[in-house]
Structures are given as C-alpha cells and as structure tokens.
C-alpha cells in the first residue's frame, strides 16, 4: 500500500480560516478529502464538527456533509442539468428545509447573479459558475467550508473577486474555512498556513503575528 499522508496532526478553531499549501503530489487534496469526510483514513482519526468520522459509514458521513459542510472546487462542479438556482437549492432540499427557493435566490443575489438564476452552468462564464458554487456552498449554512483551489481555473481579476466574496461570506456567516491552494497570496489571507511536502506536514504557521 502506498502511504500518501503521515504524521499529520492539527485542529482548526471554529470560525477561523486555514490554507493548506504544498507542491503537486504533496497530498493536499487527499488531506482535504479526509478532513471533509469524502474519504476514510486508513489509520488515525479525523474529527469533523466534533464527530469521529472514521467510524462512520459513507451514508453517515454524507449526512454530516449535508448538515455542516460546504464545498468549493477548482472546476466548480455544478450539476450541468440543473439551473443556477436549482444547484444552490440542492443542499437545502436534501435537508428538507422550507423556503429553499427564496434562500437560494437571496444567496444568488448576494453573489451578484440574481438575474442569471435560471441559466444552466454551460450558459455561465467560469467566474459566474464559481459564484454559483459559492452560493451553493453557503446555502446550508455550513459550519465549515472546504475549498479546493477555488481560483485555480480563473483569471486574476475574476479570481480576486471570488476570493473577496469567499472571505466576506466567511466573516458574515462565521464559517470555518479550509482552502487548498498553490497560490501563496491567497494563502496569506487566511489565519493560518499548513505546508505539506511528500505527504508530511513541514510547517504550521499563523499569518496573524
């Protein structure tokens, strides 16, 4: 068996933000997958919102993701057959929340896409798609949000406006934020940076000193 990650031990405070950086193949995305409950560690423990997710099965982890976790991906990962509005509604509908439509509409307006709510992902630009994805990520009022290279597929200008929006929402809602990125400038905007190399944590520094 190939060892991808080892000797990693850290925790994140509620409401704080954290960046995971490192070269390609250092295990950043794997670590994100483990933290977010998308995958199971072969050894060790991962606590997500005070729950040991290593002892949970896939469906139980899905329930935790649905209630407490938000995601943003490098390639946006919108469902191509759903409109922008419907994409934002999914997490709330899965939770059985009432007024999903209204909340989703408010969120879309918040990210500046109120007038594009009925467009399909293929009818939106990359930046617009990522904004829909942001609205979706916050729609279930997650306790923690995981972002995998959120600006990696965007040009500088668009990337910056997404970053701005991301941190604004993070502060507004008090959501914990974990970002995986190559972009050291983006990393510097978080409270703390963890650096990985060859699957090992080589540094863990606060950016606020």
């Amino acid at each position, binding site marked *: 068996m190939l060892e991808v990650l080892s000797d990693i031990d850290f925790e994140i405070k509620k409401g704080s933000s954290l960046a995971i950086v490192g070269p390609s193949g250092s295990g950043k995305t794997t670590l994100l997958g483990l933290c977010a409950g998308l995958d199971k560690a072969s050894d060790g423990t991962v606590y997500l919102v005070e729950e040991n997710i290593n002892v949970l099965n896939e469906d139980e982890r899905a329930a935790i993701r649905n209630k407490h976790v938000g*995601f943003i*991906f490098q390639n946006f*990962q919108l469902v191509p057959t759903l409109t922008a509005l419907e994409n934002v509604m*999914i997490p709330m509908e899965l939770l059985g929340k009432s007024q999903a439509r209204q909340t989703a509409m408010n969120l879309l307006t918040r990210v500046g896409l109120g007038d594009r709510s009925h467009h*399909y992902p293929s009818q939106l630009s990359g930046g617009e798609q990522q904004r829909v994805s942001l609205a979706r990520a916050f729609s279930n009022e997650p306790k923690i949000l995981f972002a995998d290279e959120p600006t990696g597929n965007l040009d500088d200008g668009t990337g910056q406006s997404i970053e701005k929006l991301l941190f604004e929402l993070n502060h507004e809602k008090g959501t914990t934020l974990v970002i995986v990125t190559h972009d050291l400038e983006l990393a510097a905007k978080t409270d703390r940076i963890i650096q990985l190399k060859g699957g090992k944590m080589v540094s863990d520094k606060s950016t606020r000193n």
Partner: protein
Amino acid sequence: MASFSVLAKTALRDSRRNRSRLFLFMSSIILGIAALVAINSFNDNLTEDINRQAASLLGADLVMSADSKPEDAYLMKLDSLATEKSSEISMFSMAYLPNVDETQFVNIKALSGDFPYYGQIKTDPLEAVESFQEKNGLLADEGMMLQYELEIGDSIKLGTQFYPIQGKLQSGFGGQNMTSSFAPTVYMPGDKIYDTGLIQPGSMMDYNYYYQIKDGIDVDAWKSENRKGFRQDGMRLTTIEDRKEDLREAFDNLNYFLNLVALVSLLLGCIGVASSVFIYIKSKINAIAVFRCLGMSGRDAFMVYFIQIVVLALIGVVLGAALGSFIQYLIPMVLSDFLSIEVSSSISWKAISEGMIVGFVITILFALLPLIAVRKISPLRTLRASYEEDVAERDGLRWIVYIAIALSLFGFLFLLIGDAVTAGIFMAAIGISFLLLYLVSKAIVWMIKKWFPKNWNYVFRQGLSNLFRPNNQTQILLVSLGLGTAILTSLFIIQGMLLKNIALMDAGNQPNMILYGIEANQSSALAEITKSYDMPLIQEVPIVTMKLEAWKGKPKKEWFADTTSTSRRMWPARREARVSFRDTLNDTETLVSGNFYRPVTSPNDSIFISVEDDWAEALDVTLGDEVVFNVQGTRMKTYIGSLRNISFNNMSTRFFVLFPTGVLEEAPQFRVLVTKSPGIETTAKYRREVVKAFPNVSVIDLGMILNTVNTIIDKLSYIIKFMAGFSILTGLIVLISSLFLSKYQRIKESVLLRTIGASRRQLFLITSTEYLILGALSAATGIIIALTGSYLLTKFQLELDFIIQWWKILLVFVLVSVLTMLIGVFNSREVVTKSPLEVLRREQ
C-alpha cells in the same frame, strides 16, 4: 433518507437536459413490448375465435369419417343419437368442362341431407345450397368458375355424366383454403355419385357422416366411451371440442414461432435497456459525485435515477402496449391466407396487462444492472476524476439482480412455452450464447494484443489498439452486436433453408405429373397416349387396397383391446393399406435389413413382404414376423422379409408395404402412372385427351401443387420477414445505443488528438478502422454461432438438408460491419466538424 418528493423533484430536474439519451432506452422498451403485446393479443383473439367458431367450422355436433364404407352396425349406433343426419362421399377426380373444352382436377363432395347444422355453405345465388340436391345440379367453386369463365347453367362432366351448375360456391367447410387452388370443390347430390362411374374398386374416397345430436346427450362423453371400437375399424369421430383442439394444435407452431419472435425482440430490447442506462449513468457520474459530496446518501442518489428509469419504463411500456395493440390489427391481415378461421382484432386486456407487467419487470431488472453502480459512486470523484476507475468494488447486489433476471426470464419463457424443461433448455441456450460471445471477445482482444501489426500505418494502429485500451467497449459491443447478428442470421438461414428444400423438389429431372385411378385394362392405352406426347413412363405402378387384419399371431381387435400395448402408435392398422408389388427397390428406397425380394412361384410358397421401417416400428414387428391382410375379402398370410427406409424429399409414389411379384397380379387393382410433361401447353392438351378417353382417371399436375406450396411458402416468408422486422429494428437500436456507449468513451480522446493536430482525415480513419473491425468481429462471431445453431436445428429437429445461401450470410456480414462503422463515424462527426473546445465544454 431525503423525502420522496425531494428525490422525485431532483430526478425530474436532473433528467431535463439528457432526455435524448433516455430516448434510446425508451425505444428499446417500446419495440420489445410492442412485439409481445401484438403477438399475445393475436394469440388471445385466435383462441377466442377458435372457441367461438369451432361449431360453425365443423357444421355438426358429431362427424364420423372413414376411408372405406363403414359397417351398418356402426351407422345404426350413431343414428340412434341423432335428430338429423347428413352424409358425404368425398373424392378427388378430374372434371371435364365442355363449354371451354378444359379439364380440371376437383374435389367432389357428394352430399345428402341438410348439412351444415351450424354455420353455412355460402353460395350465389343464396338458395342454390338448398336446391342443388333436388335439381340434380352442382355447386362449383367460384374461383374455378371465374378462371374458366363458367356461368350458372353451364355443364360440368364428372365421370360419365353431365351436371348443370346451380350455384357458385363461395365458401365451404374446414381448412380448404390450401387445396382449393389446385383442387377446387364441387358439391353434387349424394346419391348421384354412383351414376358417374367414378367409384371403382380401389378408388380413394372419404366417407363423412354428419349428425345433429339429440338434446341431453353429452356427445364428448359418448365419444370417449365408444371411440375405441370405431377406431379399430378405421373410423374417426370428431366433436366440436375435438375441432377446437385440432385448430389449437394446428396453430401451435405458428404461436411458437411468433412467441419466439416476441422473446427475441424483448431480449434485444433488454440489452438495449441495459446499455442505454449504462451510457446514461456514465454521463451522470460527475453529477452523482456532486450530489454525494453535498450530502446525498448512496441510496438517495440511486433513487433519483431509479425514479427516472421507472417513470420512463412506465411511459415506454404504455407506448409499447399501444403500438402493440395497433400492430395486432396487421397480423390477421398478414396471415389471412393461412387461417381457416376469421380472426378478430379486438383489444386483449389480458395480453396488454401481461405484456406490460412482463416488459416492465424485465426492463427494470436489466436497467438495475448498470443502475446499482450509482450507489457506489464516490464523492471523491469531485476532487479526482479517475478515482472510481481505480476501485473495483465487489457488489453483492449485482448477483441478486443477475439471479432475479435469470428467474424472471425463466418465468417468462415458461409462460410462453408452458414447459419447464424446454424453457430451461432455452435459458441454457441463451446463457451459452452469452458466454460464448464473451469468451470469443476475450480471445479476440488477446489475439489482437499478441499479434499486433506493429508495421501498420499509425491511424490503423490507433484504431486497432482502441479495441483493447483502457475504457474499451469491445466486450460489451461484441456481445450485444454478436447476439443481434446471431439471432437475425439464424432467422435468415432457417427461412432460406425451408424455401430451398422445397424448391429442390421442383428441380432437375423430377416427375411433375401423376395419373391415378387407372383401371388395369386402361393401362396400355394410356401408356400409348403418354408416349404419343413424347412423355416418359417414369413409373407405372399397380395398387391393391387391403386391410391389416392380424400381426404376430394376434388379431387387430385383440391388439387394440390390450391396453398394455402402445396402441396409440398402431396407425398402420387403422387405415386402408394401398399396396404395390415389384421385384426391385427404387431410388427413393434403401434396404435397412433383410432380403428385399423372395419370389413366389407356387401358391404354397410363403409370401415375404417388404415394409417401411416406421411402419414396422408402429406395429412393433420385425423380420420374420407374421402379418395377415384382408385383400378385398381374401385373407392373406405374409411374413416380413425386409425393412426399407423411404426418402420423402422428392415426389414419387411411396408404399409402406410392398408385395413380391406373383401374388397380387390377379387381385382387383388400379394403377398409377408417373410422368414428366415438358410444359404447360402439353400438360393441358394431354390432360384433356386422357380425361375424355378415361373419365375415371385423375391427372394431378405436380407443377400445380408446387405452385401452391410455393405460394404458401412465399406468404410464410412474408410473415417471417414481417416479424423478423421487429427483431431487426430492436437490434439496430441496440447497435446504436452500444455505439453511443463507445462514443462517450472515445470522444474525449478524439478531441485531444484533434487538439494536438490530428487532421480530420486521420480522425476519420482511426474511427472507421476501430468500428469496422469491431463490426466485422461481431458479425463474424454472430454468424458462426448462428451457423452452428441452425446446423444442429436442421439436422436434428427439422431433418432437412443443410443448404446455406452464402451470399445472404456475406450480405449480413458486410451490412453489420458497414452499419457499425457508419453509425460509429456518424456518432463521432461532432469531433470532426466542431471546434475541440466546444465539444470539450459540452462533454464536461
């Protein structure tokens, strides 16, 4: 678990933009179910119509038939049951039509009494059927009258007598559609037949007695008590119930064939279902991973797609049932010339509901195969696209679905065939076909890898290597295309073989004319006439009629009374034997055992006869056993001297029993002459001269019979083609969905190649090579399976010569290969015509 309404809403939204892919899924179901419903509706209507029309098809409560005049004791017994009685002597003979100076072979029915008691004989004018007996006239087949431009009042000469036509016969009784074209029916008054001189010793006649039974008598119960006695003396009793049973049996083969077509269509449809759902799910993997990532459980994700499939299956099933109900209106039209009864086309709710339930269950089960994988799609796919491909999870549910499919297919086959063993054999055959195709595809991929043509041009190498690279669809395509080809080719092969076998009878130097009913003293004059037309005397055979009286020292009655013996099989004892005598075997016969000819030179010599092997088997007799015949009043003891096998695949006289020369020469006999006429004109002229000179001699032109058979076969092949059309259409849909499947895999690679500079021509060649090879391999595999299967079927089941029309097979091969290539290239046209970026963005 999320609420049903949320899942249903998600299912509806999710299906929105990919419905064209689901259309493939629906069309597979629609055709399969349509075939099933159409065929079952037709069968249902047929069964109902048989029940309704049986009485009017028999015309009486009870019919007794015999091939010789029955004893009075039997007739008196029957008379005591009846309120009304009619009798009919039926025979084939020549008729002379003086108005047009023509002759025609006819089926004379000499009728006395008011038959039929149910239904009617339709005539023009209507009252002719009532009056022809009194007025001493005839009812003549309308088609024949039309052919010879005969009018009511014109004469027809039967034997030595002239009779006026009283009416046109528009429809008679029973299944006479088949024979009417070469032996049209002529009804005459019953007592007049003896005046015609047609009834001679040895003449072949059928005696039918029709009874209307008194109220309160259970005729079926009476029949089962008395049947045995009548059977022993060569008489057959038929009730309305028997008639229904006969009709049902007569249609059994047709039903079997139609059901087979329905099954094949449904199976092909199911393959279509499985592969189109597979494509659909494949295109949804990313969306499913996102759903999972956002917290949807595996079960809920499965439900979202299951709901879509169930709704579409329901729509497909309803559309299929509607289409099937429409098609069933066409079946009776296609089959009208075959059916002796009128088949109505009413909606059969039973067939519709059965078709819908069976279709729905099988569709859902086949759809489940690719669908259950949805549960296992990992949310990690949102982070890493290739995650799933690296993880092959074993899924126990898959095996449960396989078992459920096997059980439901077996149940369906059992419903169709009604016999567990045959259903099992069928299942096994299907299973073996799948396994064979799978193994062949494995072997092919292995061989391509092993002997890869490294020196080929790049584009051809690329096309060929696509067959075994990761994500290849070689196996699934080989199995589905191969199976489709195998089924279609089998249909073609068997159809072609049936037609060819019949056509062979007409070929070469085969005789085409038989003259029978020739009296011994007419023989030499007739031979002279024949020679004067330069026609050969191919066979000139004497025939003596006799009855089997005893064998192996036990009289017939005792054999029949002995319930322990296999009396059902003793058919030779129930019929009048028509026996010939000669000293050599002819070329249709082969000696199985014994000594064919032992001459009889004095009255004290033992008589050694030669019998056909099936005849001997039916009586359980063998070489040396004693057999006693009653030759028109004289008991004659004989011994079995040899057993022969007779080939039935060309037309000439055949005798189950042959006497040696020197025994029967003086017995009352008639002769049969077999000859070959060079053409239609000679046939007509010759026939006219013979009938004028010898009115009792019947001339059967075999060309005429062959024409009739050919017409029947033509119609049959028309039906086969009509029904096979169903399978072909479903097969094509499977082909298209299979290719969609591979398009999904190939398109990204092609776009990449295009991006890095491959020309349109190169991409076209790569794609064409891949699909052409795939098509050719599938076609070849399917054809080999079809050839093996139909060879076994023809040799062991149909007992026909295995004749293959190779050009047709070659045509199937070329068609499947080229069609696969065309559909493959057509599916990939986007890659060639549109910008790579556009395609990539859409396929994301």
